């Protein structure tokens, strides 16, 4: 659905710079790419995670494994929903035991997606630590969750939504601030 765009917050060049910075921060914080794995949350978290991995490969010359997490089975709201989300595949083709895991998502909002993702990750083993990287933090947390790496903090009102577009699935690379249709959130906002 097309919604009224209030502002373009990050453009294509900006998105590239932000991804590069996130990659540098992750490497700095973890003292390199050893023992590091990156897990993207469906859908756009995967593409963002892949881009961060590509940046890390550019910087350090090392290849980092990518995992894909679908959190549908861990949602706390599907019973109340008219439309049930389709369960998609989770692919974590490596052992996360004792690894430094960076969880990647496009937008951090209530924190419920992150909570679900943390619970899902735990059933794959016991990582050394889990960090959270997001492209946009739009505030309004409902759980005590704080990101380790943030592309951009964007204070929003409840009547607004942050739309991340990525070339892998959309027609362009950008982040938009849009109006929610008549104040209702028909987007699944976890």
């Amino acid at each position: 659905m097309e919604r009224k765009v209030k502002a373009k917050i990050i453009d294509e060049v900006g998105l590239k710079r932000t991804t590069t910075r996130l990659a540098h921060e992750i490497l700095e914080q973890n003292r390199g790419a050893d023992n590091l794995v990156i897990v993207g949350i469906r859908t756009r978290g995967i593409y963002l995670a892949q881009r961060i991995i590509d940046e890390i490969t550019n910087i350090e010359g090392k290849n980092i494994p990518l995992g894909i997490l679908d959190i549908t089975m861990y949602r706390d709201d599907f019973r109340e929903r008219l439309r049930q989300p389709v369960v998609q595949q989770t692919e974590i083709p490596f052992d996360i035991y004792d690894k430094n895991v960076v969880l990647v998502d496009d937008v951090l909002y209530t924190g419920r997606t992150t909570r679900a993702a943390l619970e899902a990750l735990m059933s794959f083993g016991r990582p050394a630590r889990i960090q959270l990287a997001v492209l946009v933090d739009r505030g309004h947390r409902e759980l005590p969750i704080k990101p380790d790496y943030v592309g951009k903090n964007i204070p929003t009102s409840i009547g607004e939504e942050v739309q991340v577009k990525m070339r892998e699935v959309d027609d362009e690379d950008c982040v938009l601030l849009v109006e929610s249709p008549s104040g209702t959130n028909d987007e699944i906002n976890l």
Partner: protein
Amino acid sequence: MVFKRKHLLGLEGVSAEEIKLILDTAASFKEVLDRPIPKVPTLRGKTVVNLFYEASTRTRISFELAEKRLSADTINFSASNSSVSKGESLRDTAQNIEAMKVDMVVIRHAAAGAPHFLTHWIKGSVINAGDGCHEHPTQALLDMMTLRETHDDLKGLHVAIVGDILHSRVARSNIFGLTTMGAEVALCAPAPLIPIESEQWKIKTFFNVDQAIAWADILIVLRIQLERQTANFFPSLREYHNYFGITRERLEKAGKKITIMHPGPINRGIELDSDLADDPDFSVILNQVTNGVAVRMAILYLLSGEVEK
């Protein structure tokens, strides 16, 4: 695609889109089974009763495991050690279960239509785990899931169902499901074991097993239901094996790749040679069992969402 059904009573009338959604969902749930901790909280707080009025190992364990993998609370009920042995009717049992606030009921019963009957007395969802000689939808779904893994697309596949079709709920569910998905289904059995209504299904029937093998890509071999052979449908088990048993010799004569499925339990050496059942070049029987858990998780998940609010 939204799954709108409240119950899963059979595959007759279930659309190709719905079956595809179930199979796709099952493929996602299958990954859970390979995790170090193979459990997700999806059905936390839901209560499922497994109501088994007939003997079952695979289906009952498979449902119970699926429920536990999804974190549902499960209660098992079997007719032999319950008030049924004191003469309680299905309706009374159902109303008592309803009074205990149960979300879903999985039922196996010797009478065709028992799951449909239950829907009148229970507010929750009812899943048919086999009713008499009528349907066994989750078995057909796990068969289709297994075939999708080995053959990618169900469309155009030649599937021959060989054996006691007359008494087989598995055959009926597979005929409905597979033809809906675009596969071609044929039956092969001694004439007395072909049900009269098969004329309405408009599918091929073979009375010679070699012809069926020559035609088929896949054989679904059915168990000769010794406990249901009240009339003499064929002279003896040895004669059945000689004329309709699936043997290595018969398959090698066909000289092509054939996949063998069997819903279990197998009468080894009667409808299917023992070494064929264990030969991974032909048999996908144990894959069927693994997929059974995934398919049942998918069904439980899809039926658990509220239809209206």
